[in-house]
């Protein structure tokens, strides 16, 4: 059974629509800047920030003044609504529709602002409940009007790729006809300081797969896809943007945060995805790599890619130099980029690459390249050794 992608919605540092994102990707315009909305002592760092303030987002969404949406929830609601509009879904609850959302930051951006203030005054206590990851999803579901199977995945930076898998399985097992899948994360002091304490944030622009890479830029954003069963589509006759051909998840079982030297988990995830898609590695024309630009990830991922593709290496690029690392949103943002690449038959450039790594032969695509792409593969890896691979097909 094939799973159709019929809608996509995105908000990221490089745009608040599919078109805007595509424009930046095509013309190599990064979204990495200094922060305007985040209050942090580490304001010398660069971020992939969405340039809308919380107030502006609330206005765009038409939220009431007493809403308790965190920034994460607002970004998510924005992108999920766009995805449904893109899919031209009329009555969302006419068919069995679910929402699988992913987040890791969740309502932390508000909690970290008011943690002690909660005790002192009742004013911001409305954010106590919206701290929970599940409640971010509830807010999004409420905003887009989904009633039914709604849940949340949080497996760190592979979260939204996993949400896509869960959604696909729900359609495959006949439990749902349609599912909105994706993820959202906002910038927060919590993650900035977390990654900073791990010393994997770069003080400049991130440079995936470069020998001199110094770490990642944190980003924020949200992206959702509408997945539908072919049975439902036959009835409704709406255009299909792409198909989810295969997917796989595996665990590196190596270290809490670091990836293994051999990229075992990544290798297994890609292997599973190819098997489910029934594809030989050679069928893949473009890989949107996880490529966070940390020393550890890129080497591990490169080794895994070499193990899978051998001498049939497809074009590879990481789009993190455009958006920064959007954590739980990265998987779905990059899934959309993979589909856009296929739709427009373009390999997006891996910005900031200068020096190849010594340990591996891989070199990412550095400029925009027109190419026939029938199958695109997207990797997402997270803390806890969580490795996920999605494969999209044009037909």
């Amino acid at each position, binding site marked *: 059974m094939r799973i159709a992608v019929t809608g996509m919605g995105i908000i990221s540092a490089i745009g608040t629509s599919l078109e805007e994102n595509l424009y930046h990707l095509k013309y190599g315009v990064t979204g990495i800047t200094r922060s305007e909305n985040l209050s*942090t002592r580490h304001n010398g760092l660069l971020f992939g920030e969405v340039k809308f303030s919380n107030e502006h987002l609330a206005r765009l969404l038409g939220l009431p003044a007493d809403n308790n949406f965190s920034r994460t929830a607002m970004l998510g609601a924005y992108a999920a609504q766009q995805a449904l509009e893109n899919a031209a879904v009329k009555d969302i609850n006419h068919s069995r529709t679910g929402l699988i959302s992913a987040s890791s930051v969740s309502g932390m951006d508000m909690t970290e602002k008011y943690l002690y203030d909660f005790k002192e005054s009742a004013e911001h206590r409305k954010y*106590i409940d919206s701290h929970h990851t*599940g409640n971010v999803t509830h807010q999004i579901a409420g905003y887009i009007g989904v*009633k*039914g199977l709604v849940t949340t*995945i949080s*497996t760190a930076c592979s979260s939204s790729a996993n949400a896509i898998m869960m959604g696909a399985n729900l359609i495959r097992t006949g439990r749902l006809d349609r599912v909105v899948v994706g993820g959202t994360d906002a910038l927060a002091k919590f993650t900035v300081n977390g990654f900073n304490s791990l010393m994997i944030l770069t003080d400049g622009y991130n440079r995936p797969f470069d020998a001199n890479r110094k770490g990642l830029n944190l980003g924020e954003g949200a992206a959702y896809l509408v997945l539908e069963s072919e049975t439902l589509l036959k009835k409704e006759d709406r255009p299909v943007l792409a198909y989810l051909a295969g997917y796989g998840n595996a665990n590196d079982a190596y270290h809490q945060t670091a990836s293994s030297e051999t990229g075992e988990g990544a290798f297994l995830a890609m292997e599973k995805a190819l098997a489910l898609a029934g594809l030989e590695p050679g069928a893949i024309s473009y890989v949107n790599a996880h490529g966070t630009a940390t020393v550890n990830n890129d080497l591990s991922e490169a080794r895994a890619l070499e193990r899978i593709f051998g001498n049939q290496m497809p074009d590879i690029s990481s789009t993190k130099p455009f958006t920064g690392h959007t954590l739980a949103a990265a998987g779905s943002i990059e899934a959309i980029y993979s589909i856009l690449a296929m739709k427009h038959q373009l390999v997006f450039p891996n910005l900031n690459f200068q020096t190849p790594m010594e340990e591996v032969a891989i070199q990412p695509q550095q400029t925009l390249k027109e190419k026939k792409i029938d199958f695109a593969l997207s990797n997402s890896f997270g803390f*806890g050794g969580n490795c996920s691979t999605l494969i999209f097909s044009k037909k």
Partner: protein
Amino acid sequence: MSKVYINAGAAISAQATFDGGFLENAVINRQDVFLPAIEPDYKAFISPVASRRMSKAVKMAIIASAQALNESGVSVPDAIITGTGAGCIIDSEKFLKAIIDNDEQFLTPTSFIQSTHNTVGAQIALGLNCKGYNFTYVNGAVSFESALLDAIMQIELQQANNVLVGGVDEMTPYFLELQQMIGHAKSDIATVGSVQSEGAGFFVLANTPTESTYAAIEDVTLYNKLSIAELPSFITGFLRKHHLEPSQIDLVVAGNNGDVFDDYYDKAAHLFRNYAITVQYKQLTGEYFTVSAFALWLASRIIKEQHIPEILKPHAVKHKAIKNVLIYNQYRGLDHSLILLKRV
């Protein structure tokens, strides 16, 4: 599609549920508004070096999962799927306070690393060197049910022969205080919420039954938000999908927690009032997001042993064989779930 069996289960809760007994010595605590989990002796399972950085949730989960795996005879499962409603809040709180108290300086990464929601699933995988599918669900009161649903699908889609699936939640004093502030948790003054607790429940699901099999797990379903009026059709619709009528359910395990949303459970019990025995359990366990893992443990054992623990006091004069069991849970009117079990 393969049938799915519960071949093993273990629970850690505010009761001594880890000793192999079946609530014979359970005690109802009427004094406290927070019921801490009774922790097993971790030393017997985890080396002090390994456990020193583990939060309570991780330790509870590692031990419950080890016991379940041991009972099932599976050494390394094909998949590990975890649910946690609040995640690793001990470490989250620790890191958060460190950021605020030290104005974003002098931070060490340990608690940040451990604060990630999938820490539990990852630690179990790491311990078992399990490279299989590894998912974590974090959606309030359906966190465990989401994990369970995924586990069932992994087996149905033949992506796994056996799955370790579980739910775990821990609590911190400050977090409890916040819940009390907004009336979700009971304090002596605010009485609208529930008595809070913590715990872990892990199970081994498989496509083939074994000698240890408790029950077949037919299905699980979730619904994000329902009005009380919509509840009966949600339940009957789910049963109908499995060719069952309410009259064919023998036991309902309901998640009443004493808060103002218990009307949902009353409505559900009403639907089965002429047919099934309804038992509640949160008087023993308190409320936490993944407490339904305890409900599954309870229901599984009741089916296997055909015996309802005395302390649950069903006061059922007319007793019948327990074949079909429905577990219903919700929290504060959100995150409704149904789990359907069958005697094997």
